[in-house]
């Protein structure tokens, strides 16, 4: 499996894991760092419990670090499809 394919599959698996927690997002895999890009209006990560659950889910996918991207208000919001599962 190429590095790019492995990275993509890690990111998709992470998105599915977070989706199971009710978090609508995209995940960008940068090595051991997962950059979580929340869906429009998603405020899950303001809650400490939700952050802990998300971290555990991402760690289970092999990431050692996770960060939630802060939206750029100057750009149009990214459209997300329905949550998986």
């Amino acid at each position, binding site marked *: 499996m190429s590095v790019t394919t492995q990275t993509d599959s890690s990111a998709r698996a992470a998105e599915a894991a977070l989706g199971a927690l009710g978090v609508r997002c995209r995940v960008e895999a*940068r*090595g*051991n*760092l997962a*950059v*979580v890009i929340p869906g429009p209006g998603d*405020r899950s*990560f*303001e809650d*400490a419990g939700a*952050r802990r659950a*998300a*971290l555990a889910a991402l*760690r289970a996918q092999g990431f*050692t*670090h*996770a*960060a*939630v*991207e*802060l*939206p*750029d*208000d100057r750009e149009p919001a990214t459209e997300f499809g329905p949550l998986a599962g």
Partner: protein
Amino acid sequence: MHDHQGICAAGGRAEAAPAPAADKELRLAAWLDAHGPVLIGFSGGVDSAYLACIAVDRLGPESVLAVIGRSPSYPAEQWETARRVADQFGIPVVEIDTQELHDPNYAANPSNRCYFCKTELWSRLLPLARERGFATVLDGTNADDLTGHRPGAAAAAERGVLSPLALLGFTKADIRERSRARGIPTWERPSSPCLASRIPYGTAVTPERLAQVERAEQALRAIGVRGDLRVRHHGDLARVELSGPDLDRWLAPAEARRLRGAIRDAAGFDRVAVDLRGYRSGSLNVLACVSAA
């Protein structure tokens, strides 16, 4: 149950209680008496500030020289603190420029980057010590620093630089406690490693990247971020590590907008992300698999 010497007996096996910090300070004073005059690598951080203050108090300013090594990796805020502490406590200070960025071994930013940085530092301080008649060269390494990934300590040991705080068992908590007791203002400052610690291993350390993370952190302090703070450089993305208790505040929409805007305007990062776990010492060691998660 404790006997009169403070030894705790548990299950029939005696275990020594750790010495109080004040006792360690008495031993430090005696140690300095035996090793002075001393030249100290002085960054203005919690440890070297405490060591320099004790040394001047014990040996007198004529027997102590604190040397600040300046380079683009040395935060301006820490330099200001170093000068302030030196002025307040009468610590003689000399500043020298260090050139670690000109060493390709350092600039490549391997996981033992600190070894090359400290090699450069001590290669400049040791001749200065000889020239000025200082018998012993010291650094502020403490006992807690002896665990974890610390390649800089190897460079110090190779050159005969001594670490009395580590030698005498001073923990970071001891140093903060004794600093507070002596009115040294660094007692409650967050830890403050060099700016290169914000750049992931394998990504070159450049003056531009160092300045970028420094401006980002300064901007966050200006909008009210307190406690431990690191802005880690991931190319187009700044990953912000905050103190755990601050995450709730800075992830709320209004504050998140302020935080993102501050970094974008000051440092030019296109993207800003907040680390979900918060500040972690040695975070980039874990990211690079140099240390366990």
